[in-house]
């Protein structure tokens, strides 16, 4: 394996990763009657598909719905996870381990297993078909990972920090906000980025719990758009690229946080 130049190897891997996306991008830039995804790059790049897709697919409404959900979910879950992570880190109380494990259970529980009862439960409190139908389950479902993440991070901090604060008699809230928070900014930020990606990419909950076609998210909206316009391949591809683009841009901006976050998380 050492014979294959690492550079070539990485290059091939990157190519393999990118090819499907480039193919879609290429098709999106062709005239509406293009029949197939291909490698040919036409001489004239046609950007009209994007404008069409945006208007026909009502993408501004899709983005607005997804943004609304994300804007509520990310701050709330981050704050709650930090508080709870702090709680587990700082305090001792009866059955602490059991309660912590109880919380961790949720990490391995797929949404598919609970979406049907959620459908009926949320329906009975009348939030089906609203963005809250997606927001509430995410608020609950994001807790296990976040609490685990934060607690793990705090536990890598030197114990002196906490001891010093306790001796000082600083109350808990101050310990958290004035002492732990500034040191943990990076880890907390990574967490909120994960939360952002997961709520933006959420599909199952949005599809089953919101049936109003004017309240679709980016993911369910794209699926409906593609189903409806499957005969116009370039249009379909333009829509797909529109949806992928924010994720890609977001990723490029925050890639250091995201990647290092995952890599560090692996060793805890």
């Amino acid at each position, binding site marked *: 394996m050492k014979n294959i130049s690492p550079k070539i*190897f*990485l*290059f091939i*891997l*990157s190519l393999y*990763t990118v090819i*499907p*996306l480039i*193919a*879609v991008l290429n098709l999106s830039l062709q005239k509406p009657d293009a029949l*197939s995804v291909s*490698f040919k790059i036409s001489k004239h790049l046609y950007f009209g598909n994007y404008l069409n897709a945006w208007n026909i697919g009502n993408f501004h409404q899709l983005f607005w719905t997804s943004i609304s959900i994300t804007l509520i979910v990310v701050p709330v879950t981050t704050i*709650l996870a930090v*508080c*709870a992570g*702090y*709680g*587990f880190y700082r*305090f*001792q*109380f009866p059955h602490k381990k059991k309660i912590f494990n109880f*919380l961790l259970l*949720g990490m*391995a*529980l*797929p*949404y*598919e*297993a*609970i*979406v*049907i*009862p*959620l*459908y*009926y439960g949320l329906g009975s409190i009348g939030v089906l078909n609203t963005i809250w139908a997606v927001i509430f389950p995410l608020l*609950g479902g994001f*807790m*296990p990972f*976040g609490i685990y993440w934060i607690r793990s991070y705090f536990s890598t901090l030197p114990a002196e920090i906490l001891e010093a604060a306790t001796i000082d008699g600083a109350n*808990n809230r101050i310990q958290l906000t004035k002492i732990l928070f500034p040191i943990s900014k990076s880890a907390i930020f990574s967490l909120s980025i994960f939360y952002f990606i997961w709520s*933006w*990419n959420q599909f*199952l909950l949005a599809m*089953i719990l919101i049936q109003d076609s004017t309240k679709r998210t980016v*993911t369910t909206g*794209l*699926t409906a758009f*593609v189903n409806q316009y499957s005969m116009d391949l370039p249009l379909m591809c333009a829509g*797909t690229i529109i*949806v*992928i683009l924010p*994720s*890609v841009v977001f*990723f490029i901006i925050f*890639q250091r946080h995201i*990647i290092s976050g*995952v890599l560090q998380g*692996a*060793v805890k």
Partner: protein
Amino acid sequence: MRNKGGRESIKSATTFIAPAFILYTIFVIAPWLAAIFFSFFNWDGIGEAVWNSYRNYIQVIKDPEQLQSIKNSILLIVFFSFIPVFFGLISATSISNLSAKSKIAKISRVVIFLPQVLPLVAVGISWKLIFSPNGIINQLLSLVGLGRLEKGWLGDFNFAIYAIGIVGIWLGIGLCSLLFSTGIQKIDKHLYESIQIDGGGRIREFTSVTLPSLRPEIRFAITITTISALSGFDLVYVMTNGGPGGKTLVPGLEVFRLAFTYQQFGQACSLAVTLSTITFAFILSVNKLLKDY
């Protein structure tokens, strides 16, 4: 040292933990318990629920559709998890030798991680295009003269599930390669030297030093990729909707179909509970087997 469970401690802990705990209990645990509850009934979701004891669970195994979905989920674990992990391990040694400062390394790191952040439905739609009768794969085949192998890949009874598997590999390979190559960089070089002094070759270096040191990373990678393998709703729904003939059904999709198309809500819950049990069991065993000693 910290307060050991005093009154004040409990009160404070509650303040900080309760909100998260309550949200989690109401929106995750409660629905799961409800699923367990309803798995013992026959219910169409609208009318009355009728007690059916454990019979729904027997149906999970007897019904060919449900059984197929479980078989598929296990097959997909191989594609979403084992293959990317295996490939990541093999390639990690090679990649880790590359200076992290080189431009190619920097750009490649970002690129190969990309699949993990994209919405799965967009990934599914893109790959569906590639596998389509007019898609790149068929074009490539005819380009190299293998035109007679062209077919509608997602409509092929034998191949369709492997198509989904290929997307799984695509999703996990970057993450695993990156994970392991970073892990390798942390390994103490002296450990390799002592093997070399002993006269051991590259393979022994790998099995005696690299592999054991990467245990936490391997554990993490398998856990994460398995969870995504076992849900799989987004991808399959968009690419094949379980077809052809039910050959690509996965439990997540089948739960949905049982509840909404067949109106067998109780049965759907049994399958859902079975799915979550399989997931738990798998993750627990992986974590036990690969525990740090």
